[in-house]
């Protein structure tokens, strides 16, 4: 026991006690506590175990820099792993568990590992575990590694909103410098966004205090916040600006009490980084003992939470800032002694030993004493202040550069970055008055800055000496000691990035906030370079770990790549449609609740026997309009379309410039200057883009326009031998005889006062009528058709039945029956390639050597041998046996045809067109069988059914 709660003071509510457990033991804290402050108040010293050696560890810091107090927190039965106890507010009934320890942090079974630490230096795993193989040891290593435990039942909802914001000035950090900057800008009328990761404003003022403009700092701070709001800005606390991206876009994570956390994407005209600074440890021997803490953190625990971290406190420092902390702790009742590495020490009423370095820290499970200048002093706590490291992460992410300032013993910003200004402690201004001046200037202020008493901060760098004896921790969480840094240096891992990667220094969840500078200073000393020459590792976002669910936002389930919906989805569902995704569209796959195969077979057969209704609304319908429309569609398409007569329809391909078949579809010539280009459902956006690019690049954009009307029209397709008879009953007022409306022609009319288009195209091989009406008329037309279907023995048909119908006819589906190398002549459509003299997309590529290669895969039919089951789609056609077996291609479509009463299949096969009649091997997941290459069209090769 060392820490305890004082009877008065602090920003806690003693009237609201909160019960919680730590490692199973019950404790009481108070509203306003952090988990860490409550633990310290209860005298808990060991809060965790170190990652590698399982050394007992206590709380080091009081905020996000905390390396040791990482805990799993269970709230209402759901556990969140790896929370910083120093940041997390205490709540009633929290169950807090230490990580990396079993059964508890205080009594950890793996603590023996520390005895073997001499044989586990940095990178030892690169040098061993070679025999028999790494994987023999890996499971053990994996089980030992990791911090918290994932709670499989904790599935956070996708409910974090993402807010976009713009402002004149974003101020990161509402401490003195940030407030001063915000004040100037707001009073000038600028929109200021002031964010701070604490729940309150004030930053270091909250625990260090100070008088500003002659009064209590808080009054001044509140006036600044009021001015910011009055000028249309925002003051957002509990919000961490964690990353700067291109164009100085800043992302910030806001923790909200009664709503889901939010992500802010802020595009400011200017950023003031006033993020403060973080106190460094001194690399004294055994500086990782529980009870060793940052001096500033001890002050924060005192002032914020009324927790005194010890009764007999040793303070080791190389700078002036620890004196205020020491004096406050003494005033609160602790016995405090200061050991200053400097010979000249500031004036203080406390006992100070100058020129003193801590030579030993005693107490395995908690500090019991320290040794300095050869003498041992009892102590229950050791506070370390090794100087301050400016929090320059955002500036560095914005491509800043640092220089080492020896008078500050700190790396500070050295070059201007457009749109970013660093102020206050983040810029090396470690006194209140200097921070206010810098903040004032950063905000663009002229004249005097907010006034504060003159402060004094002096520091003498006291970097780790590479050959210093004992175990001196540089990175607490990663368990990297000075010896590890020395070893890395010896082995040549001297670049800071190599040092980081070889030793894992700075790679733990605190990302080196307390360790980075000590590590590189040690490496600088080791290699005889300056700190500037040694350089820093890249500062990477996020500044603190940010919940993945917050960055993922609401993009989940339905909102992730949202499906496109048919206008008649509700009607289809009411009729029992089973909806599936096809090319980004949700479409009826089949209808009815019974066995899918049976349903699909039934729908297929009915379509061949009588008539079926199919919803074709998702097919792309792109209008190309204007005097140059014909020229554009000609250039865009493999098949010439300008020769098409108005009222007629032509099927064709479009190619990529590399000559590969990109899509297929029919084009209707609506008028001389108007074409309707249809395309696969999933390709519409891309085809529109292609057309647009060429329209603007190659044609006169004033003489041709592209208009995507896909979403405007519903298309209901009737197919089957009775389709015409059924359409005739609908009273559409259009002539349906084959003279007036032959195959590959269309006619227009009116339906319920709206335009109607009736097109005779067929993707089934049977007589078909596509009825297109504006979406507003779709329900009524469908109802009319549904009422008429029973009289003809017809019914609904989903996409799966259509797949069989078209496969029986050898009609291909792009991307399924073609692959990314299929050229039009592989599909038997060589005419335009041989005949067209004019330019079209992909033309040149059709004459490259690859286009003439032997063994190109061509689309063919595949017949199973008598009695065989349908081939698995994805099976390969092969030649040869055993090891010599070689793939010739694969099955792309395969079904059982209810009409032919046998399987039908399509496939891409090398030289397929020359193999018709050949029997080849079929390979599927280790099993082999045989099948015969057949003509593409299995049903009605003469095409009689089109006109039946």
């Amino acid at each position, binding site marked *: 026991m060392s820490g305890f709660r004082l009877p008065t003071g602090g920003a806690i509510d003693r009237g609201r006690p909160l019960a919680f457990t730590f490692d199973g033991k019950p404790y009481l804290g108070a509203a306003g506590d952090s988990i860490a402050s409550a633990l310290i108040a209860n005298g808990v010293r060991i809060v965790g175990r170190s990652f590698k050696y399982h050394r007992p560890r206590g709380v080091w810091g009081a905020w996000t820099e905390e390396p040791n107090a990482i805990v799993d927190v269970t709230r209402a039965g759901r556990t969140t792993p*790896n929370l910083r106890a120093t940041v997390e507010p205490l709540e009633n009934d929290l169950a807090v568990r230490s990580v990396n320890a079993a059964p508890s942090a205080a009594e950890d079974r793996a603590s023996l590992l520390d005895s073997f630490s001499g044989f586990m*230096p940095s990178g*030892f795993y690169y040098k061993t575990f070679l025999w028999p193989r790494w994987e023999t040891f*890996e499971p053990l290593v994996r089980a030992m590694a990791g911090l918290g435990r994932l709670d499989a039942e904790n599935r*956070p909802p996708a409910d974090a909103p993402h807010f976009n914001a713009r402002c004149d000035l974003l101020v990161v950090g509402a401490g003195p410098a940030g407030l001063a900057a915000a004040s100037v800008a707001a009073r000038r009328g600028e929109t200021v966004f002031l964010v701070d990761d604490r729940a309150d404003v004030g930053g270091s003022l909250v625990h260090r205090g100070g008088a500003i403009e002659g009064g209590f700092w808080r009054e001044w701070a509140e006036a600044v916040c009021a001015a910011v709001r009055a000028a249309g800005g925002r003051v957002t606390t509990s919000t961490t600006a964690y990353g700067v991206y291109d164009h100085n876009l800043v992302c910030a994570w806001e923790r909200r009490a009664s709503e889901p956390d939010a992500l802010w994407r802020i595009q400011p005209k200017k950023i003031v980084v006033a993020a403060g600074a973080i106190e460094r440890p001194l690399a004294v021997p055994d500086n990782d003992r529980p009870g060793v803490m940052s001096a500033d953190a001890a002050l924060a625990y005192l002032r914020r939470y009324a927790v005194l971290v010890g009764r007999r406190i040793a303070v080791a420092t190389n700078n002036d800032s620890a004196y205020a902390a020491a004096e406050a702790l003494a005033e609160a009742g602790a016995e405090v002694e200061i050991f200053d590495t400097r010979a000249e020490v500031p004036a203080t009423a406390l006992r100070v030993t100058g020129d003193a370095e801590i030579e030993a820290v005693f107490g395995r499970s908690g500090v019991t004493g320290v040794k300095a200048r050869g003498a041992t002093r009892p102590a229950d706590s050791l506070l370390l202040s090794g100087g301050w490291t400016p929090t320059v992460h955002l500036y560095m992410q914005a491509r800043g550069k640092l220089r080492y300032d020896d008078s500050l013993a700190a790396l500070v910003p050295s070059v201007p970055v457009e749109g970013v200004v660093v102020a206050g402690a983040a810029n090396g201004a470690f006194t209140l008055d200097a921070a206010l001046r810098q903040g004032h200037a950063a905000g663009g202020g002229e004249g005097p800055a907010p006034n504060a008493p003159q402060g004094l901060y002096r520091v003498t760098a006291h970097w780790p000496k590479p050959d210093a004896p004992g175990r001196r921790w540089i990175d607490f969480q990663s368990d990297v000691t000075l010896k590890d840094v020395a070893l890395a240096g010896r*082995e040549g891992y001297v670049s800071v990035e190599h040092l980081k990667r070889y030793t894992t220094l700075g790679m733990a969840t605190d990302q080196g906030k307390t360790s980075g500078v000590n590590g590189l200073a040690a490496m600088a000393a080791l290699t005889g370079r300056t700190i500037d020459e040694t350089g820093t590792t890249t500062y990477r976002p996020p500044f603190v770990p940010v919940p993945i669910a917050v*960055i993922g936002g609401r993009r989940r389930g339905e909102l992730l790549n949202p499906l496109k919906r048919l206008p008649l989805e509700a009607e289809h569902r009411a009729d029992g449609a089973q909806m*599936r995704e096809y090319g980004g569209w949700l479409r009826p796959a089949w209808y009815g609740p019974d066995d899918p195969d049976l349903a699909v077979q039934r729908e297929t057969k009915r379509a061949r026997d009588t008539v079926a209704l199919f919803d074709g609304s998702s097919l792309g319908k792109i209008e190309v309009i204007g005097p140059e429309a014909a020229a554009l569609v000609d250039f865009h398409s493999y098949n010439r379309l300008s020769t098409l007569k108005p009222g007629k329809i032509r099927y064709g391909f479009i190619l990529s410039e590399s000559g590969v078949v990109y899509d297929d579809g029919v084009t209707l010539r609506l008028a001389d200057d108007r074409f309707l280009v249809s395309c696969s459902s999933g390709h519409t956006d891309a085809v529109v883009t292609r057309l647009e690019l060429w329209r603007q690049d190659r044609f006169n954009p004033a003489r041709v326009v592209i208009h995507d009307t896909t979403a405007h029209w519903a298309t209901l397709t009737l197919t089957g031998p009775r389709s015409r008879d059924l359409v005739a009953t609908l009273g559409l007022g259009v002539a349906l005889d084959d003279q007036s409306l032959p195959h590959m022609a269309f006619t227009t009319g009116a339906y319920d006062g709206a335009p109607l288009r009736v097109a005779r195209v067929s993707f089934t091989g049977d007589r078909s009528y596509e009825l297109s009406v504006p979406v507003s008329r779709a329900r009524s037309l469908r109802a009319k058709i549904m009422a008429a279907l029973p009289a003809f023995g017809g019914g609904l048909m989903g996409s799966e039945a259509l797949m069989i119908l078209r496969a029986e006819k050898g009609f291909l589906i792009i991307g399924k029956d073609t692959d990314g190398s299929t050229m039009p002549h592989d599909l038997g459509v060589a005419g335009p390639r041989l005949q067209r003299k004019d330019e079209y997309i992909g033309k040149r590529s059709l004459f490259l050597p690859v286009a003439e290669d032997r063994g190109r895969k061509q689309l063919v039919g595949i017949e199973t041998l008598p009695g065989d089951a349908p081939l698995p789609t994805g099976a390969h056609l092969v030649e040869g046996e055993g090891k010599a077996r070689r*793939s010739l291609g694969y099955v792309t479509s395969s079904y059982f045809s209810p009409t032919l009463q046998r399987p039908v299949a399509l496939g891409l096969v090398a030289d397929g067109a020359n193999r018709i009649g050949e029997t080849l091997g079929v390979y599927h*997941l280790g099993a082999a069988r045989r099948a015969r290459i057949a003509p593409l069209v299995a049903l009605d090769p003469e095409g009689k059914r089109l006109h039946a």
Partner: protein
Amino acid sequence: MTARYSALTILRQGLTGHKGWPQAWRKARPKPAYDFVIVGGGGHGLATAYYLARTHGRRSVAVIEKGWIGGGNTGRNTTAVRSNYFYPESVALYDLALRLYEGLSRELNFNVMLSQRGILNVAHTPGQMEIAARLANAMQLNGVDAELWGPDEIRKRLPLISQSLDSRYLPNGGVFHPRGGTARHDAVAWGYARAADGLGVDIVENCEVTGFVMQNGACVGVETTLGEIRAGAVGVAVAGHSSRLMAKAGVRLPIHSYTLQAMVSEPTKPCLDTVVLHLGTGTYVSQSDKGEILIGGGLDRVPSYGQRGNPPMQEIILSGLTEMFPAFGQLKLMRQWGGVVDVVPDSSPLIGPAPVPGLYLNCGWGTGGFKAIPAGGVLLAHLLANGSHHEISRPFDLDRFRTGRLIDEAAGSGIAH
């Protein structure tokens, strides 16, 4: 001097405070001339040097690195190794790499932590399952291990994967490649460096190549920030910077540079056993030995040399992760970074002679160079030593863009690599 790495050496060194470990590789200063100069001290460049020395017995070799070795894409990738490819040409290349990886730790006497815990491509729709079958069969026919999984196997091996009917992409099955897995990326660079150094190769760090020395239209060396270095032949393996460097030799390449992001969560105890690539969301994920969840996804949409990545793709990748594994939403993102990758139209590498005599290329690996490092090294070493292609690298020559004989995995298997 290199010390043999073993548990015994560690014990012995442990007793004497680890004072006796030598440098893993010498900090070489460049000599005026070498038989071979390799530009780029990433995995491919270091492996090339190693195989030149080891396989071809050529010891007059220098690797020139502008920063620190392994600092480019070798040190920024998501460490997956695999050979689950569709076309025989790709399989020959990537399975050569995987087979070499399988013996690499012992060959280099450096634990590269190859962990063959398998890689699963998760498919969702029946159409994707058909393509998955096509891929699994192709792999088996090409002699690579592949299993076609159904939903039950996925549930068994990945208990955390979303089975909710509200999911946008239900896991219906997929292709499992048992020999796939991960390796420790830094160790691959350091291991090759140390082994190459042991064979006499000079590894020169902090030395930037600023131009090529040309003589009678042929490349005879490089100009660097440490002076001119002559070479019998020059190999270039500078992923992400290939266009920039080759422009100095007047060569333009079929490459666009894009940023590829990667990110890790805080470490947790083991909760994910294999590498998973989710076709629906494009997110891929594995868990490192340290316990971090290692996450990657698609390229940033905007071509860029900026080595960091921007928020729109982070949102897509991480929402993809929680769609796949909703429980991972409780974890926090710890670190995010980006690398610049060479994106080639068919997403296959460029290996072969450059249009300038004396200059040889190993680039264009896109997002997948790490897994190919041993093969990239073997093939570029072969090119340099013989002046002509190894049969495995022949199809990957630059000339395929003239003939149109691209090797586009996405074309065959629907999965872009």
